[in-house]
């Protein structure tokens, strides 16, 4: 997925928003790395949720994932930076089919941050990691002069382990697979936008921020049997980005049905008012799964039996035709494409 040329001379916020521009930035950074994987493991090139280090003579391999977390405001409806820093990284491990073991944490703090804010964030971080039984085994801290960053950034590395034979990968979707989403989409991004933009939107909407551990645990046998071909948490760029990424990497078409995609009324209302596309809005506690059609019903049932997956739905299927494209059957029965989002969602004029 390389994009040859860089389209502007400076990096803009849109380069970090999970769309086509972000791909361009990643390509710019990674194109000159010459040594990019360990043995037959998954490396930088796959641009998957994480990488693997196969252990010779063992049936298992180590899974590694890295994620830097920055959020404004630091405390938002349904979570904070500390919880996000655990969930974001651990969910990436789970989406590779790996059992999470440990985290490292790097904290970069802007001069002037109050200790009681740091304490709240660290407490949340520790509490969430403990809840998931994940050790925090190493870390580093830096303080930067005022004005060089916004309050605090946390970067975590996740370390997990999985059987070598488990292949849950972005390039592993099969024609006829069914696509499941584990809950309503766009809650996180919309809750943040509502609390951020000075719009005075009063809503009870909370971020969907959550560990996907319960879903991973209940699906362990399906994961081991390779009934689940791909899993992905649709964070930045939302399901539009995740589905397009899958279609491109797996060389398949994906058809989803608008009236099956769970979206909360509040999310729809905020998005329609601001001219935002809910399919491009981030989730932090949802997963998309591409699943063997013969096992989709039992898998859906298991997901629905968990707290975080009670609103799960089958939203579409994988097709051999329309390769590398994502199509939507709209609520009135028309058909259109879902495009890879461009960058930062921008509200429109009217």
């Amino acid at each position: 997925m390389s994009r040859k040329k860089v389209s502007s001379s400076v990096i803009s916020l849109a380069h970090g928003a999970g769309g086509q521009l972000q791909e361009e930035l990643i390509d710019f950074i990674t194109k000159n790395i010459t040594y990019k994987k360990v043995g037959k493991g998954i490396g930088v090139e796959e641009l998957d949720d994480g990488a693997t280090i196969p252990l010779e003579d063992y049936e298992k391999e180590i899974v590694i994932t890295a994620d830097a977390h920055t959020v404004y405001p630091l405390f938002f409806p349904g979570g904070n930076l500390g919880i996000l820093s655990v969930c974001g990284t651990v969910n990436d491990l789970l989406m590779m089919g790996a059992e999470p073991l440990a985290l490292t944490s790097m904290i970069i703090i802007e001069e002037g941050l109050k200790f009681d804010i740091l304490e709240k964030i660290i407490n949340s971080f520790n509490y969430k990691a403990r809840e998931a039984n994940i050790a925090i085994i190493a870390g580093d801290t830096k303080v930067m002069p005022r004005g060089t960053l916004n309050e605090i950034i946390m970067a975590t590395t996740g370390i997990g382990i999985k059987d070598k034979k488990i292949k849950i990968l972005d390039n592993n979707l099969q024609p006829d697979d069914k696509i499941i989403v584990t809950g309503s989409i766009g809650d996180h991004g919309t809750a943040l936008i509502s609390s951020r933009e000075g719009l005075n939107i009063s809503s009870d909407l909370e971020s969907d921020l959550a560990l996907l551990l319960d879903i991973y645990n209940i699906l362990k046998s399906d994961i081991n049997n390779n009934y689940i071909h791909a899993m992905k948490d649709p964070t930045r760029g939302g399901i539009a980005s995740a589905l397009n990424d899958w279609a491109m990497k797996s060389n398949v078409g994906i058809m989803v049905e608008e009236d099956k995609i769970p979206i909360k009324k509040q999310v729809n209302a905020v998005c329609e008012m601001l001219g935002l596309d809910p399919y491009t809005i981030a989730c932090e506690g949802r997963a998309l799964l591409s699943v063997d059609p013969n096992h989709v019903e039992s898998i859906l049932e298991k997901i629905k039996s968990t707290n975080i997956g009670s609103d799960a739905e089958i939203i579409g299927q994988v097709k051999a035709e329309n390769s590398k494209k994502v199509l939507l059957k709209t609520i009135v029965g028309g058909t259109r494409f879902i495009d890879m989002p461009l960058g930062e969602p921008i509200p429109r004029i009217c």
Partner: protein
Amino acid sequence: MEFPGTQHLRNKDFTNKVIKIIKKLLKEINKPIKFMHVCGTHEHTISKYGLRTLLPKEIEVVSGPGCPVCVCPAADIDKAIELGKRDDVIITTFGDMIRVPATNISLAELKAKGADVRIVYGPHDAVKIASDNPNKEVIFFSIGFETTVPLTGYEIKANPPSNFSIICAHKLIPAALELLISQSQLKIDGFISPGHVSTIIGLKPFKIFSDAYKVPNIIAGFEPNDVLLAIFMLLKQIKENKYETLNEYSRVVKPEGNLIAQKIIEEVFEPVSSPWRGIGRILDGGLIIRDKFKEYNADKKFNIKIEKSQDIPPGCSCHLVMVGKLYPYECKLFRDKCTPINPIGPCMVSQEGTCSIYYKYHK
């Protein structure tokens, strides 16, 4: 047929019923039909819900110049960019305006270089920024059709702080449509007119289509079944050899429009001959601030003049796309050289722009 309550406007069964009647009418009319809408939000609805995939292929629906961001001349954006370079200036405007390429750069590029350019939801937010930053000049780059004019007019009337001013780049729809219909060889069988603009100005300015040019005209809302109902209402007129301006969007649009908003527009602004990007100068096609409120006119306050500007870059077909003469995919630059990341023409930027909508929803 009875008009639905809003709950039916996204209902698939209702859609199927309307499509069935449309097909029946088309069969009776027995010729290919071409309709034009003149609103970016209508194009958005049509594309977002895949309505063209539901309609018989003999019914063509083309886009007219309905994107306020697209028709804003490069010279006006250049003006905002020039002013934005000053250390004491904060430029504020609508979100989809900031990425539109002007003669050299866009406001977004100016922002990335360090200028203070802020996205606001409307002029009220800009006035608030002015109150909060008394040592800065806060300029609202005020664009849009009749839909956004009253908001700006209201703020100007309400005595905003003296460090607030606007670049007035507002455009008026009816004059542009008359130019289009009188000059074009488009052979349009009917118009779908913008419900938002009609909400403010009422039905009367749109009657010119049906009265003078004898083309059926429907004021339509923005839900998928609104647009399909408008198409049905147009076909019905064609079949009955009628040409009237009718209101599909009666749940919102009053025949006389919003009289309070009209009064504000009249009090603060006056119509003026005005350039439209890609279309040219249009008599009474835009607005300027009346002298009574000249202290809020950034043009007069800062005396900025743009000598040379370029609306349509070489190779770009936005001027043809805007008047429905070309589909975006018929432009040589579309998707290949011109993308939403690297927009060459204005129609590729705004979510109301035809090229941008085609890029997003069509392949």
